[in-house]
């Protein structure tokens, strides 16, 4: 019987333009190029109006999910972010990080169902900062926006997710951040089971999405797990389980739309290789992990080293060769100023 597309029942409204960008607190450290790249794509490729306000701050996501920050504080800080957005008369809030997106959905939903919480937050914000704030019209995640403009971007792309020699589509494992899809499934494209945000991009750009058993399993980030060393073993175990499950499919690379997922699936491959000598790629190396912006940027033909791919734990060169991206291997560790930086101590097998 024909495979039913239930995900079509889950559609959401994504703002078209006038974005107020809120940078993530940790993505810049994990994937330095991603956020700048996203803004570059919005402005240069899509000609969108996006504001990158320097006066923004944390959304308290990690603190809240690690039971360090009480919910009232979180609501008030989110309210302050919104008030900062109102200053630039923009109504579409674009949080760079998926945890912020999940938090915003949670806060907005709380305010919708419990108006007294909304009044309380207004009072707190007034007392603390003397500021007012309005509910944003739309909250869209960068991956939503790229997903929405995937066809437009395809037109501008130099490369596609196709293996240059064999011509077959690249086998791509997409991993959606749980805080994006699972907390409010009806508030996402494709719902919790089969989120379409990344899959849509991959399929649009000639790639092939892999549906492996542990597709929906946690990437291994888990705030409380990795924060405390005693729990860190659980965090790695989850990532290991995921890679064991995807190994038979021999994926070419993994793409994720959340700071934690991309970071940990990338870094933990190194840890697993060091600890247990296991790697998950055919020829005993690692599986490269990209953020969705990096993937888009690569296909648009940007210089990989400008995107910060050299900071990845799993070396990306094999993937670049597959796609056929033109790059200069020697520039890998050349700094902005043109001086060659010292090479990091690279793991021998990843």
């Amino acid at each position, binding site marked *: *019987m024909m*495979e039913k597309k239930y995900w079509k029942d889950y559609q959401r409204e994504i703002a078209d333009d006038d974005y107020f960008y809120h940078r993530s607190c940790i993505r810049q450290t994990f994937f330095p190029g991603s956020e700048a790249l996203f803004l570059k794509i919005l402005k240069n490729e899509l000609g969108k109006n996006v504001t990158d306000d320097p006066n923004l701050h944390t959304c308290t996501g990690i603190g809240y999910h690690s039971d360090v920050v009480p919910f009232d504080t979180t609501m008030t800080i989110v309210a302050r972010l919104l008030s900062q957005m109102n200053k630039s008369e923009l109504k579409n809030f674009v949080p760079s990080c998926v945890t912020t997106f999940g938090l915003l959905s949670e806060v907005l939903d709380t305010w919708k169902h419990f108006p007294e919480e909304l009044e309380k937050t207004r009072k707190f914000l007034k007392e603390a900062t003397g500021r007012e704030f309005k509910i944003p019209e739309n909250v869209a995640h960068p991956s939503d926006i790229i997903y929405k403009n995937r066809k437009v971007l395809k037109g501008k792309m130099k490369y596609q997710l196709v293996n240059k020699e064999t011509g077959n589509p690249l086998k791509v494992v997409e991993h959606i951040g749980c805080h994006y899809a699972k907390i409010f499934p009806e508030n996402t494209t494709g719902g919790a*089971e*089969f989120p379409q945000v990344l899959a849509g991009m991959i399929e649009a750009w000639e790639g092939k999405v892999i549906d*492996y058993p*542990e597709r929906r399993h946690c990437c291994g980030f888990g705030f409380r797990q990795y924060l405390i060393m005693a729990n860190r073993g659980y965090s790695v175990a989850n990532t290991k389980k995921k890679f064991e499950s995807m190994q038979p499919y021999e994926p070419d690379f993994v793409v994720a739309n959340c700071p934690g997922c991309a970071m940990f699936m990338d870094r933990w491959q190194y840890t697993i290789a060091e600890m247990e000598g296991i790697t998950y790629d055919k020829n005993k190396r690692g599986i490269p992990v990209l953020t969705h912006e990096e993937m888009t940027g690569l296909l648009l033909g940007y210089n990989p080293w400008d995107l910060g791919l050299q900071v990845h734990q799993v070396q990306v060169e094999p993937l670049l060769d597959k796609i056929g991206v033109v790059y200069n291997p020697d520039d890998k560790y050349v700094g902005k100023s043109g001086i060659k930086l010292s090479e990091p101590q690279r793991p021998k097998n990843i």
Partner: protein
Amino acid sequence: MKKKNVIVIGGGPAGIEIAQILSNYSCNVTLFEKEPQVGGQIKRIDKLFPDFIVQDEMMQKLISNLEKTDIQIHTDTEIKDIEQIDNIWHLKTNKEEAFTADAVVLATGFKTFDPKYKEELGYGIYPGVITTLEFEDMLKAGKIQTSAGEEPRRIAFLNCVGSRDEKVGNHYCSRVCCINAVKQSIETKELLPNAEVFCFYMDLRMSGQFYEELYRKSQEKHGVNYIRGRISEASSTFDHRIQIKSEDTLAGLPLKMTVDLLVLMIGVEASEGTTNLSAKAGILGEYGFAKSLSLHLKDNLTKKEGLFLAGACKRPSTLREVIADARAAAFEVVNYLKMEING
């Protein structure tokens, strides 16, 4: 004395039985069935629990009794509207025909739960995930096989799909799936002796006569494995089998395995006809079932005079109960219309 008119809505076992009984009394009986032929949902079952009687032979007995009577049977006609005007019942069909009757019997039965609401079980997405009725089709064909046409090495049955489930709004137990799972597991082992069969249950409700013995026989003679745990997720593996994840709650450990077939024991819900007509007639009960006047003494009567209920339109029931209930309802109709038995 003018002959009374009785309309029976629904040509399942209940409808057939009550129509056939009423035809012996001084009344014209009209039977409406929205499907092309009578028989109802039970037609898809291969053998009946707990004694493995062949369903077709059994139903053929009921249907042949019906054919012996002079009842007008309207198949392919669905009753769209029902209304009582000073104790005459006016019904409209989907073919815009109108009918009147002194008494109406609602025997509109049940429908099975559509597992697409349990998307995490992958019904309709992974070919290895099928419903208990689809499995009965295979049993009828005498060949259990995967979508790729091979003999399955390992089969898992999952009970309570769409029953006792807050997420889909059915809090009740559908009564018939546990024993059906045990029956199907035995039939599987008889067709495929060296297949491994696993039944995942929350509680095994073996309440009927001979149910417990059947359960015990499935364990002892056929070696069916029972795992107390709820499969919460199914996904396809590299070799197109199904990986299921559960917890063995008695061992207190998570459990996973790959199976060739995952059979969902889908629960029972009120059929559309039951819900619509009950609503229109103002006798809508919980979960869309029809509400009888009182559970113990007036279970075939309703708030509305002249409107009777028979069979599974009230609640999930086994075939045995449905037939008994139809006979009880017939008695109530005869009583109400004070009819004599034909000479």
